[in-house]
């Protein structure tokens, strides 16, 4: 037996195993003072622990413990029962108060238990695509109309000023109705532009966050 084996044997002994002394161990202990000292120290410790008498309590202690435990259980049960009754009484009082309030102040116009119809959702505005498409159509229509009107007005002013006609446009007679139509056309064109601009501004205002929240933030 060598020193590690001897230490292992001693460790098992300290761990409570009952081991018979081996001749190889005795021989090693006789030749190794370090292991011999360890064994002697461990033996003293184990002998001392064996001699240690277990503390014995007062014979009355067990009865006192049982009495105290039973009393504690009884007290806890009483507390639990009291808590349950208090909670039940409070709940009953609240229900009675609610019932009395309902009966004392009847509101015949409004049934509190009536099912409220769901609120109507506000109509959704036109989407971005629809707005852009509408603006595009309005602009193209306006351009066409303005082009026609400009052509008519150019002819009118050319004939009025007796200027040469470089583009060879057909001449039109100058009368008050023609002038009125030209003015009306220009007015309609401006109205269309203003309407489209208003639509665009409304769209962007709708997309912006509310003013209050943005101020708070």
């Amino acid at each position, binding site marked *: 037996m060598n020193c590690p084996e001897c230490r292992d044997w001693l460790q098992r002994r300290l761990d409570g195993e009952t081991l018979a002394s081996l001749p190889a161990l005795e021989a090693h202990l006789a030749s190794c003072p370090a292991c011999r000292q360890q064994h002697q120290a461990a033996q003293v410790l184990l002998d*001392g622990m064996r*001699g240690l008498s*277990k503390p014995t*309590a007062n014979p009355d202690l067990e009865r006192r413990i049982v009495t105290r*435990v039973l009393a504690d259980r009884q007290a806890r049960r009483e507390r639990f029962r009291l808590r349950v009754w208090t909670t039940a009484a409070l709940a009953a009082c609240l229900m009675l108060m609610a019932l009395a309030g309902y009966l004392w102040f009847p509101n015949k116009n409004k049934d509190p238990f009536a099912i409220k119809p769901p609120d109507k959702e506000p109509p959704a505005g036109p989407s971005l695509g629809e707005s852009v498409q509408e603006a595009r159509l309005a602009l193209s229509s306006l351009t066409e109309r303005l082009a026609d009107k400009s052509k008519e007005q150019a002819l009118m002013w050319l004939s009025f000023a007796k200027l040469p006609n470089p583009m060879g446009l057909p001449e039109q007679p100058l009368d008050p109705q023609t002038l009125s139509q030209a003015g009306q056309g220009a007015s309609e064109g401006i109205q269309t532009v203003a309407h489209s601009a208003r639509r665009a501004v409304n769209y962007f205002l709708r997309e912006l966050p509310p003013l209050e929240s943005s101020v708070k933030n």
Partner: protein
Amino acid sequence: MIDSDVVLVRRSLRGDAQAIQGLVERFQPEVFGLCVRLLHHRQDAEDVTQEVFLRIFRSLRRWDSSRPLKPWIMGITVNRCRTWLSQRARRPELVDYLHDTVASPPVDDAAELTREIQAALADLRLEYRSVFVLFHEQGLPYENIALALKKPVGTIKTWLHRARTEVLTRLQRRGMISEVNHELP
């Protein structure tokens, strides 16, 4: 026929006074023994033993019945003793004369050795003392001590080794054993 711990616990939870008495009877010597070793004071040990059993029966529903009962009880005992010691350290000591350390004078070498070991135990840190007493006096295996103290088995082995070394060092200082040049395994 002796009821198992689980049966006794179930009956206790139903309020069976006999089962409560059975559990107290079964574990009171060990709880009290551990309290005496950890507190080193007989009167305190009796008080703490009563508190330990109150706590045991209040929290018996929380015991995991798939685990052994004794380590759970010993864990509560160690915790209660730790609290008691910390409270005792804060209040002035008025009852020195009650200490068990001044027991009857030694009559022979064995009795003196026992007395020295008790004194050495009293000087140990609470963790080392708990492990030493649970292992060497109560016979709990490492795994159950680990369960009781909620520490890994490796920590328990280390603490036990240090406890043994410290006890032996004191015994050497007191001339109970010859000088040990190498530590115990």
